């Protein structure tokens, strides 16, 4: 704006004698102003752009007539300072924003010009005096039109710059999204092919009669079954993530006893843990945990994901489950700690991104869809909690925690000095 005003001053080198002349003209022109505004706005309906812009009906036209008369008075006042330039700029800028085309303003200015010439003809029948006035008036109208056109250009340029910036941003977003989609497709295809290899391979061996005994066929069918289960897990993860990203994941929040969810989820990983000779511990000290607000299926899904990750990434040692009131009031905190390979602090955010495994190598060396933690993050957020990763005990391994909001009944009873935790009903 400042630079614009500086530039406008260039146009304000309006001769002082001209200004004085116009000021003496002012009182004599006053009586013509109502007709000027009538004529001016009688043209509006014939101009397509104007017709589109001036949609306010009679009331708007009446207001505009007033404004036009004031402007014409200003023309004869001789005060062509910065405020005048600023005013013209504001009007021009508003016209651009309204979508009023510049050619309309120019033709409207033509109407003003010819009408004022008529007025001069009536006021000054002697041609030499009239010429004096008409020359000054013409200079003034040129100046005014210049200001308007400048402001049009300036405003249009500003609009284009803003539009360009928006387009550039949208373009980057699209490129990013397209790249992510390609990456997702490549990774998904990769993840699906491994279990498919076992399913198709073993069934074909059986069908080709390459098994030695019915027992061997049965053994291979068990492998097929396990691979198909694995495949189903991956497909479900992909569907979950698709639903989450489309904003269509619904959670059914209810009052829930977390103890029941913990107790029913732990056994799901004990077989794998036993195979790796890992110890699984539940160090939740409280006998009864406070009731939380959560979706039971989704809470179990998150917990199972954390537990199976812990088992998967722990070659030896133990996996520990803990649950207690969070330091943040009104939340329960559940954590799973392992003595596994750990996650470097600078990569802890990355594991919540799709298809990232952090194990010190660039390639993903462990099975799974690579979608577990990104899904867990979204589910916990949908249930109103938070999720995070820190060092395991003694800086070894990993501790992943999540929080869930406590139920209102729990909150009420936690103020109860007897210390009894809530139960349903």
């Amino acid at each position: 704006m400042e630079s614009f005003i500086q530039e406008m001053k260039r146009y304000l080198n309006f001769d002082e004698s001209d200004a004085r002349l116009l000021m003496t003209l002012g009182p004599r022109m006053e009586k013509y102003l109502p007709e000027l505004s009538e004529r001016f706005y009688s043209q509006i309906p014939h101009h397509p752009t104007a017709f589109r812009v001036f949609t306010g009906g009679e009331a708007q036209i009446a207001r505009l007539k007033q404004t036009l008369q004031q402007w014409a008075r200003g023309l004869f006042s001789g005060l062509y300072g910065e405020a005048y330039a600023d005013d013209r700029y504001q009007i021009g800028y508003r016209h651009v924003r309204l979508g009023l085309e510049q050619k309309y303003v120019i033709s409207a200015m033509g109407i003003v010009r010819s009408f004022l010439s008529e007025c001069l003809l009536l006021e000054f029948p002697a041609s030499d005096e009239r010429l004096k006035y008409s020359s000054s008036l013409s200079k003034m109208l040129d100046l005014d039109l210049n200001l308007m056109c400048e402001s049009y250009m300036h405003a249009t340029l500003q609009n284009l710059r803003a539009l360009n910036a928006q387009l550039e941003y949208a373009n980057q977003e699209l490129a990013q999204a397209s790249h992510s989609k390609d990456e997702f497709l490549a990774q998904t295809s990769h993840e699906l092919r491994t279990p498919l290899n076992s399913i198709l391979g073993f069934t074909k061996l059986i069908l080709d009669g390459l098994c030695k005994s019915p027992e061997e066929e049965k053994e291979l069918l068990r492998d097929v079954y396990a691979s198909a289960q694995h495949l189903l897990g991956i497909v479900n993860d992909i569907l979950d993530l698709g639903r989450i990203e489309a904003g269509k994941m619904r959670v059914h929040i209810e009052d829930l006893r977390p103890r029941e969810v913990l107790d029913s989820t732990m056994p799901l990983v004990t077989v794998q843990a036993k195979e790796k000779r890992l110890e699984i511990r539940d160090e939740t000290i409280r006998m009864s945990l406070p009731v939380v607000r959560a979706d039971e299926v989704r809470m179990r899904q998150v917990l199972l994901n954390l537990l199976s990750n812990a088992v998967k990434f722990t070659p030896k040692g133990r996996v520990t489950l803990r649950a207690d009131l969070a330091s943040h009031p009104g939340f329960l905190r559940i954590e799973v700690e392992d003595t596994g390979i750990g996650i470097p602090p600078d990569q802890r955010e990355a594991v919540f991104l799709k298809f990232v495994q952090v194990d010190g190598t660039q390639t993903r060396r462990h099975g799974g869809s690579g979608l577990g933690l990104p899904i867990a993050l979204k589910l916990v957020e949908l249930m109103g909690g938070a999720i995070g990763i820190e060092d395991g005990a003694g800086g070894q391994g990993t501790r992943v925690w999540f929080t869930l909001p406590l139920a209102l009944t729990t909150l009420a009873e936690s103020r109860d000095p007897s210390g009894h935790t809530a139960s349903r009903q």
Partner: protein
Amino acid sequence: MSHTPRVLIVEDHALVAKFYSMALERAGGFTCVVTEDMHEILRHVEAGEVDLAILDVSLSGTEWEGRPIDGVQLARLLKQRSPRPLPILLATAHAMAGDRERLLAASGADDYLEKPVYDAQLLVEKIRRLIEMQPRA
């Protein structure tokens, strides 16, 4: 072929490795060595006991000189270490456009297996052809 072909299988998914070895033994009568252990891999290859190697591109359990090694690097290493020409089949579940050319060029492998690989007979034929193409020692 003068002797029963011996195939080395390096694959980190246990069930996939099991499929390769069963398919090759039953449909081709081959002998298979399944291992992810680098010392064992080198012992078999350097002794010249292996007629062909199937290497998976992503190997989660194999390390070389303290660092994880993938099938592409392993293929180059085994080509160097083998006392006789060793045909290598590179197996992977990467199946996007350009993967095949890129991985074959980077590894120096002789052919490429795109998962899912499930036809035992076709696999055996492919391996026989690759072994027979090698100059006799």
